[in-house]
């Protein structure tokens, strides 16, 4: 029996989060036995780059593509062509427009993430205070959805004021500069929420460099391995993330099950995710994996060497 070849297409190669996801994919492959993982992606986060990668995957006649998209619309036509040629396509992490995939796996549900990021800030602001948002790239949608979801629940936190939102483009230097600008513009700032793994590291560094450890708490979504230093220095009291290893694992399982026709995507369908149970698809053929997990000084050492 031939190997089932599953391509894990990421936004860009070399990002720690996706490397961890690739590790999860390999775990799934090992568990399934007859799966070959092709871990690939462009070198910078562009849709054109991903399309070239998709074209070469179509040419190689892989069995399934699981993609975290740089642009939900731009990659859709290429993925549609992949589906026409009999390739199973799912998206995970950052979604693709519905016509370009069979299903989408959210790392967590958007409302859960939205509530988590504001809760993380509120936990350390019993008296209330000013918080600001440092978002990621201009071409990624999930940050905006999470911020939207966060705004929906702001009524529950009457003492907390969101003073501004800036964009760091997922570039270390730009995020750093934007974080500096925030502290400059809002001298009374209490917390920076960065729902992006690049931004949160840069913001923590900016807080340390500005000598504002203890005054400004950096929180949001980050990777334990990259945030260990910030927790140690006190620039960040806590942050959250879903487990990227699990995410890669789950995406691979889903792709395998759909590609081998063990399951079919459709509203209400249940698709297996191996050790993580079943994913239930909603009306948009979307499913959520799990809720984010919070890391702080008490548990960081346990995870920082894993991902």
């Amino acid at each position, binding site marked *: 029996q031939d190997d089932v070849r599953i391509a894990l297409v990421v936004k*860009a*190669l*070399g*990002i*720690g989060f996706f*490397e961890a996801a690739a590790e999860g994919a390999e775990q799934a492959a090992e568990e399934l036995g007859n799966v070959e993982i092709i871990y690939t992606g462009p*070198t*910078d986060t562009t849709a054109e780059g991903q399309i070239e990668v998709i074209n070469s995957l179509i040419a190689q006649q892989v069995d399934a593509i699981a993609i975290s998209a740089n642009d939900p619309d731009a990659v859709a036509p290429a993925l549609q062509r992949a589906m026409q040629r009999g390739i199973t396509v799912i998206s995970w992490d950052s979604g693709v427009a519905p016509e370009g995939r069979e299903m989408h796996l959210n790392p967590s549900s958007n409302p859960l993430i939205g509530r988590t990021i504001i809760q993380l800030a509120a936990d350390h602001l019993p008296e209330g205070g000013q918080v600001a948002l440092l978002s990621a790239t*201009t071409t990624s949608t999930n940050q905006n959805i999470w911020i939207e979801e966060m705004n929906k629940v702001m009524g529950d936190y009457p003492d907390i004021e969101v003073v501004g939102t*800036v*964009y760091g483009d997922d*570039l*270390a*230097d730009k995020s*750093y*500069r*934007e974080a*500096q*600008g*925030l502290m*400059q*513009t809002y001298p009374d700032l209490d917390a920076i929420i960065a729902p992006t793994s690049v931004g949160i*590291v*840069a913001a923590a*560094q900016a807080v340390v*460099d500005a000598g504002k450890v203890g005054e400004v708490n950096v929180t949001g979504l980050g990777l334990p*391995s*990259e945030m*260990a*230093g*910030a927790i140690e220095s006190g620039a960040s009291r806590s942050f959250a993330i879903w487990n990227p290893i699990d995410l890669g694992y789950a995406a691979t399982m889903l792709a395998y099950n759909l590609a081998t026709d063990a399951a079919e995507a459709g509203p209400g369908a249940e698709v297996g995710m191996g050790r993580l149970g079943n994913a239930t698809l909603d009306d948009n053929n979307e499913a959520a994996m799990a809720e984010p997990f919070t890391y702080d000084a008490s548990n960081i050492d346990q995870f*920082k060497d894993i991902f």
Partner: protein
Amino acid sequence: MAFLKSREAILAGAILLLLALIAWRFPGFVAPDNLARVFNDTSPLILLALGQMAVILTRCIDLSVAANLALTGMVCAMVNAAAPGLPVPVIIAMALALGALMGAVNGLLVWTLAIPPIVVTLGTMTIYRGIIFVISDGQWVNSHEMSDAFKALPRAELLGLPVLSWIALVVVALFALLIVRTPLGRAFYAVGGNPGAAVYAGLNVGRTQFWAFTLSGTLAGLTGYLWVSRYAVAYVDIASGFELEVVAACVIGGISIAGGAGTVTGVVLGALFLGIIKNALPVVNVSPFYQLAISGGAIIIAVAFNARASRSRGRVILKSAEHAS
């Protein structure tokens, strides 16, 4: 006063005007400590622009500076991660040497094979970037993998200014000395201004260009270490596209792209102009999305302006016309 009519004075005036405009909306921006912060933030741009200035003076262009910076930065970070005990001065020496080597490769291709500089550096730009990916396997080097000493240097404060700023100041001073007071510095102008005549004056055009590239590479290497240690992260794409900002700083600073004309003061002011805009936008609440268009507009206005100022006057045969206009 000749100075008041010079490009530099006008650019300085434009910067003051810009600062006044920002201060009007947001007085905190012109507080001394914030200006110091802006300067610190602009330091890498200043360092690279100085190197680029030398190259442009000799009628060449170096598009590989940002890739050189990124590769040197990555090597420094990886060496530090692998051998945290290695003293920082050794790392800096390595950064300088590696940067110089990459610059020298450009320079040699231009000098010995007479390949047009834009082709050479377009090629080496992609090659250097590619090498980063190959040696790092695309992985990032993160803050916690770097030693504290490695990260501490650029941000350590000396007399109220971070070392990064001091390095920029020292390099500007040394570079100005090199440009104004050494034979090599003057040769940059001669070789770019009139290559044919430079031969008559006993200068070797190719070799002078080689040194300009090496100088530019050395500064890019130094900036590579500073960049990576300051932002405490190294990955393939750092400073991507920065080469154009560097050229822009030179052009705004009045360096003639045709070679042979421009001053260190102008370049520093040109870099500061871009740095101030970049730092002011988030502060005055203009969407950062305006930044690109603003710097593009600034380049066009600056080059149009410089071209007017340096229009050639012909041979001036009529005696009565010599000192007029």
